[in-house]
């Protein structure tokens, strides 16, 4: 047996094992089934080359080999054509066009059997060129048809390569490379050259098929092509086990049989564990990839819902503002006696309506702020300004509310009036208003105190605004919940939580943090009041 005979038979063996493993692992995917079919046909085709070129088989097998060679050669490209339209996903009308082509293919294969259409005659000769006499017309029709299938399939894969992404794209790259190299060389060495009477590369066909298997194997290890890391491990394990099994069978004496048998058993066990480990790894990776993909799509869905929710809140809040503007506007005009004087008995109920309306406006504004924060649309107009101005504005805004409860808001400023911070004056004003408003609501008759201090940490100067009240205080376990959206501090249900949606302090925290500051609360416990601290980096006047 010559070296080329060994190559041909090795290609037969490699491709048939490869085809079996592919089919066994990927039979649910039409593309992979066609790929398995290609490997099987390459195996048959390699065997045909062996029959035609080997000196060890009788001449009568040459004719069988010749028919088998051109039948299998044709079917390789037909399967490749089917593969190209079905991998990684079937194309539109994936069945119809290849089916029509297959009918033509069937007719061509029948035509090969017609005497004189393809083969005119076979002869006993020393070299291949003397053994076959082709009908040139039939031969070149066959060749043109095979080349058409090959080019059409490659173009189809190319188109898919540019329209896919991720692992599919990577797999297609190796499939295109492998098939283009092996297919071109195969067509050249076993069709075009023999058509010109040149057979010097004829027996190298199986070598090209081995290149094809080699490139795909590389892809398997590198990029998990067709999830074939497992298949490849099994394939090489079987080859190794098979070699040791043959050695065991061919043992010359009892000693060799025991040694080779022992090695065979150990290698078999080792391969078994190896395959299981690789299988598990691939399986785990697939599960993780699937979970990641599900998580990604769920995340995208949640983001979409969240955006829709924020847009709805924003729209609804704007719509709510219009009737509230009218109610508040007309009430203010009644109080200003724009419609003439009104009965003193109406003053209390009208005041209550006014307070409720203002409360409703604050709720709507809170909702709007929340939707802006959630949608990431809040924007800050940054400038430096004296912190004293900000605190003074907040105290002024809320002094009426404090007075109604019978106390004042006092400002204790040890910094003077010219200590600056950098930020959005209006947003920070809303943020601090929430804290002071909270203190007024919970104070039990004494003044609410706002103190401005300075703190130096790691060479940096910070300004601390503390808001102190003598109110109901906060239980230690409730302090972490204070700045959480819709928080339920003190076990109050949302229906008992008068005056807010539980987003005021959440808004404050977000705004302060966006200004590189921090906010926190301290309380000696329930019934002992509380102090809220807001800290900003100090800056200089611009």
């Amino acid at each position: 047996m010559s070296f080329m005979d060994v190559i041909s038979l090795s290609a037969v063996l490699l491709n048939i094992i490869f085809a079996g493993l592919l089919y066994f692992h990927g039979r649910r995917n039409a593309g992979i089934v066609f790929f398995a079919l290609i490997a099987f046909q390459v195996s048959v085709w390699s065997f045909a080359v062996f029959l035609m070129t080997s000196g060890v088989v009788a001449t009568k097998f040459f004719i069988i080999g010749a028919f088998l060679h051109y039948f299998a050669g044709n079917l390789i490209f037909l399967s490749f054509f089917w593969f190209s339209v079905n991998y990684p996903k079937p194309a539109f009308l994936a069945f119809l066009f290849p089916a029509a082509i297959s009918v033509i293919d069937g007719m061509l294969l029948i035509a090969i059997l017609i005497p004189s259409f393809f083969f005119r005659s076979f002869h006993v000769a020393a070299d291949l060129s003397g053994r076959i006499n082709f009908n040139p017309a039939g031969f070149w029709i066959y060749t043109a048809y095979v080349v058409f299938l090959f080019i059409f399939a490659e173009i189809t894969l190319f188109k898919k390569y540019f329209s896919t992404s991720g692992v599919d794209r990577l797999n297609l790259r190796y499939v295109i490379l492998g098939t283009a190299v092996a297919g071109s060389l195969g067509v050249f060495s076993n069709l075009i050259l023999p058509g010109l009477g040149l057979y010097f590369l004829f027996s190298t066909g199986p070598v090209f098929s081995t290149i094809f298997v080699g490139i795909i194997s590389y892809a398997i290890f590198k990029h998990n092509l067709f999830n074939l890391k497992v298949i490849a491990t099994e394939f090489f394990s079987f080859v190794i086990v098979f070699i040791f099994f043959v050695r065991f069978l061919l043992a010359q004496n009892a000693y060799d049989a025991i040694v080779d048998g022992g090695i065979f058993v150990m290698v078999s066990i080792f391969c078994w564990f190896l395959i299981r480990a690789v299988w598990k790894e691939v399986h785990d990776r697939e599960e993780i990839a699937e979970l990641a993909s599900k998580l990604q799509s769920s995340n995208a869905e949640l983001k979409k819902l969240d955006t829709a929710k924020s847009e709805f809140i924003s729209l609804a809040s704007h719509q709510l503002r219009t009737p509230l503007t009218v109610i508040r506007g007309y009430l203010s005009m009644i109080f200003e006696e724009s419609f003439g004087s009104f009965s003193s008995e109406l003053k209390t109920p009208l005041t209550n309506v006014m307070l409720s309306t203002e409360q409703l406006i604050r709720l709507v504004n809170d909702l709007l702020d929340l939707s802006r924060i959630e949608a990431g649309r809040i924007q800050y107009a940054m400038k430096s300004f004296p912190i004293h101005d900000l605190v003074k504005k907040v105290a002024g805004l809320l002094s009426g509310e404090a007075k109604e409860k019978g106390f004042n808001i006092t400002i204790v400023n040890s910094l003077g009036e010219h200590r600056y911070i950098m930020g959005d004056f209006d947003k920070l004003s809303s943020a601090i208003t929430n804290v002071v408003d909270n203190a007024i609501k919970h104070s039990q008759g004494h003044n609410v105190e706002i103190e401005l201090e300075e703190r130096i940490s790691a060479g940096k100067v910070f300004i601390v605004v503390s808001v102190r009240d003598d109110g109901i205080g906060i239980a230690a376990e409730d302090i972490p919940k204070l700045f959480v959206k819709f928080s339920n501090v003190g076990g109050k249900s949302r229906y008992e939580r008068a005056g807010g949606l539980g987003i005021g302090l959440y808004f404050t925290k977000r705004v302060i943090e966006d200004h590189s500051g921090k906010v926190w609360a301290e309380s000696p416990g329930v019934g002992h009041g509380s102090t809220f601290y807001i800290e900003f980096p100090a800056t200089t006047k611009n």
Partner: protein
Amino acid sequence: MKSKILIIDDDQVIPEMYRMKFEQGGFDVDVVASGKKALEKIKEYEPDAVLLDIAMYPVDGFSVMEEINGAKLKKIPKIIILSNVGQKEEVEKGKKLGAADYIVKSNIIPSEVVERVKNLLNK
């Protein structure tokens, strides 16, 4: 001579509320309920100040401002945006188009609006 105010707002109630307050404040007031007819009315009425809503359909307040900016007017009024749409980007857009003030309606009562307009016209 009284200062003239034109209110451009497609709401049915709000313009009447401001009309009353402004008239009590000593202004002449007219109302136009559509962005489409705004420019025509400005040319005809020649107001000192325009109170302009933003969220109007089909011609919104910003489009009205663009029309005003592109028109040749004998008397150029001060534009005060009076809207319930008041996010930073809208305020910036309004100012960029030449608004003298931007007021969020729900945050301010009519008498305060009158005061702001008086201050603007006295500048």
